[in-house]
């Protein structure tokens, strides 16, 4: 079952605590929904039985309609709010801060390099693995959305606003990201990747600014 869930953009193959929490939530909700649907289908099927015990009207409208649904939904809601709370508040003080700037149809990332001066990379975001990072998401034209499914949920890049997304990659590796809000003809190819490096082993492409990486280019910021 889990093999079918793999994929570079799969939300079901989480590689960081945020995406993991959401994937767990999904599996729980899936199980619950399957139980509820089975119950519903059983109730419907039983309606065709010849000699069934009649149930009172109130059982259906109040017992099932109000009581049952309300209980289930409250439990779910509580779980959802607690998870959401944890996801948002988790790393109050992320040490790594990156700016992600979207424009039709590419992503640029700006962050302080090892020597403190800002480094700009295009199409590839460098982050240390195992450490919470904070991404400040902006847009220069239309609405885009920053999404690395294996690491975290998406968050929009909206002109005039700045959004903050916190997440962490558990292990070093390359993670696929893409824009997830329709933005015109170039939308399908608006991809990027996140390279999580071991904290003690900063990749050369990132330190030696100016040298271009295979899929990404590092360069001086404009100003």
């Amino acid at each position: 079952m889990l093999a079918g869930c793999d994929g570079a953009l799969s939300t079901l193959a989480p590689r960081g605590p945020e995406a993991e929490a959401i994937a767990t939530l999904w599996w729980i909700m899936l199980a619950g929904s399957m139980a509820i649907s089975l119950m519903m289908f059983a109730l419907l099927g039983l309606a065709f039985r010849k000699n069934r015990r009649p149930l009172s009207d109130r059982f259906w409208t109040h017992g099932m309609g109000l009581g049952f649904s309300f209980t289930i939904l409250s439990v779910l809601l509580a779980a959802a709010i607690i998870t959401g709370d944890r996801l948002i508040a988790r790393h109050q003080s992320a040490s790594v801060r990156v700016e992600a700037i979207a424009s039709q149809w590419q992503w640029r990332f700006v962050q302080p390099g090892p020597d403190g001066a800002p480094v700009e990379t295009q199409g590839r975001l460098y982050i240390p693995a195992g450490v919470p990072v904070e991404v400040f998401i902006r847009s220069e034209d239309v609405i885009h959305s920053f999404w690395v499914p294996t690491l975290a949920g998406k968050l929009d890049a909206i002109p005039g606003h700045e959004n903050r997304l916190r997440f962490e990659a558990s292990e070093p590796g390359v993670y696929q990201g893409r824009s997830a809000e329709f933005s015109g003809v170039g939308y399908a190819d608006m991809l990027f990747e996140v390279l999580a490096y071991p904290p003690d082993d900063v990749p050369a492409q990132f330190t030696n600014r100016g040298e271009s990486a295979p899929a990404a280019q590092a360069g001086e910021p404009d100003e």
Partner: protein
Amino acid sequence: MTLIPHPPQRALPLHREMERVWSRPPGLKGFLTSVNHSEIGLRFMALAGIYFGIGGILAMLIRTQLATPQGAFLDTALYNQIFTMHGSIMMFLFAIPMLEGLSMYLLPKMLGTRDMAFPRLSAFGWWCYLFGGLILLVALAAGMAPDGGWFMYTPLSSRTYTPGVNADVWLLGVTFVEISAIAAAVEITVTILRLRAPGMRLTQMPLFAWYMLGTSAMMLAGFPPLILGSVLLELERAFDWPFFDVARGGDSLLWQHLFWLFGHPEVYIIFLPAAGAISTILPVMCRTRILGYEAIVAAIVGLVFLSFGLWVHHMFTVGIPQMALAFFSAASTLVAVPTAVQIFAWTGTMWKGTPRLSLPMLHLLAFFATFVLGGLTGVMLAVVPFNWQAHDTAFVTAHLHYVLIGGFVFPMMAAAVYWLPLMSGRVRVRGVGEVAFALIFIGFHGTFLIMHLTGLLGMPRRIPVYPDNPEWALPNLISTLFSFMMSIGFVLFALDLLLHALFGRRSTRDPWQANTLEWKMALPVPSYNIAALPVSTDITAVSLARGEGALPGAPRGRREVLAVSSLDGKAQHVAVLPGNTLLPVVTAAMVGVFVLLMLFGAYILACTAMLGVLVCGWTWHRFGRDLRPARIEITPGQTLPDQTGVEGSLTRSGMIALIIADASLFGSFLFALGFLSVIAPGWPPPDSGLGLGALLLGGVALGALAVASGLARWSRGPLPGALAGVLALVAVLGVALLLDDPTRHARDALRAAATGYAALHIGIGVLLALIARTRAPATAAASRSIWRLWQDFTLITVAILTLLVVAQEVLS
């Protein structure tokens, strides 16, 4: 008061007498002039069916494109047009008109009356729908169709990023169709509240009427936000008024709020009528009565209110504060409760009765199977963290089709099969329908079930190719194959309808033994529905046809129905309805010309077309001018006045409904104003150049409006009232000249828009005063009370707008 029915007459002469008055001339002339609710309702449904076919073909193009990672044949620009048009057609040109048509067709029959409250408005709505839809279709054929997705987010849809006419087509075409929807909502509301059979209390209405009452209330409150949004965006595109431009005090998020303020209720607007059909058909299929009438009514009322508090769940990823997220998540989850109440009431109904597996029931079972799953994935999407992952992926596409096809298309197919004998007088040819059903059901789940997985594997919606993601290829291929199966099913379904119309045997009366009011008419239903209005519940089709009831026949040679009090259904007066006329089609054509001129940027000419619309509007009111007050015997010994001189006329109820919609528009405008001043980054705005002069003029306008409102309470008021209105209009136009350049900043654009709103309302007030003036004294009270409502509303809104501007000036 119980009414005694008229004694029986001979049915055939009665039928002839009524046909003479209620039918339409044959041929093209009749087609253009007909205002009959059965015919217009059928036309709505037929046209919606055609649009469903077109939308379906577009869907097949999408699915074919997505079958392989490289995408077969469409280039991206075209693909974008196709999915945008698929979504827009399905939502605006299929679902909404279909439900309008169904309710127009059914409501008068179920409520025991002869037509809708405003027959000309039904026809006007249909012509608007036809013309607005044609604009969209022609654009599609010309390759100039909208391409920003069905929710048209700014700034992608603004002039900078969509320079062509594509977005204007959407904004104008959809607004055109929305006007038709508001018209339908007004008359559905008034019909349900005022045109029931005498003695039918609100609490005794068939559930379908309750559902439609909820639906039309939601349409009145829910469509105006989108109309406002479209008008503002069109103003931005045409005249560069920066409502959504973040550099000049606008905000693209404003569009999202306005769109989803409409968009979420829209989902329930589509679902409720379908649920109404289910509540009607299911008990008949189970040979029992519906379980939990009160609980269902309570659930409807709950849904109507709750569904306006959920819109933000479409915006969970835009970066919303945590508190708001929790609130909207909770609201979105809990809205499932009233839905669950209905589902369980239906299940209980099945347990109570003995279900039979005839074709409508099969479609209802498919509804259950599909809608339950769609509802569950909906609850999942209301869970914020999960939404962050699933939003804008194929998971959402799957969810929305489970809800829309499960919650609307299957019930509509059940409704079609169930009510067809009413429309055609025939019964179905057996066989084809069952095969069609199986293909659609299996095809649907084969297409969309796996799409949940595709989405969780990370496939976004609205992409034409996915060369880097081979893992999506198999599920997509499966979806595509099954979607072909589903479309074959839909073709067979259409074929079934055709066979039915051509070869069906004549149906007996009430073929399902439903014993509800709509089946107590001759088949196919005559133009006037029933020869007499039912006055008690123990009536039969035969007794009605013999005129045993109220207001039998058409002895005065005009179309008469009974208007009742909205709560307890007490007969109040006889309403004389207008007959066949060209006015609706001409007015709709005028509006169409206006829209086209706007599309081509001929704004000055467009103003002249607007004048044409006004002239039509003026002609509209002339009906009923020559009526002289009279008392009419409705049942032996019981006489009632006709509508002349009655204050509580249907038109007045209609005006109240319209003002509710207008108030929602105004409220949305205030929301926009508040949202921009608090949230948009580009505030505070540059210094305003509004001086004392503008203030004075505003004061003059307000004063004149207050005087007009006062005059509207006086029988000799109309002429001086109109003059006061003109004075106010002149003052407001003066204000307009003093305004800052609206292109400078969103605040200035908002002020300009507010001025336009005020001017329009004052102008209409003047027209209404003049109309009241032209009426004979004996009949003037009714038109004066309508004018008064409008005048008061205008006074209040203009006062609020003025206060807000003054507050802005003082605070800055």
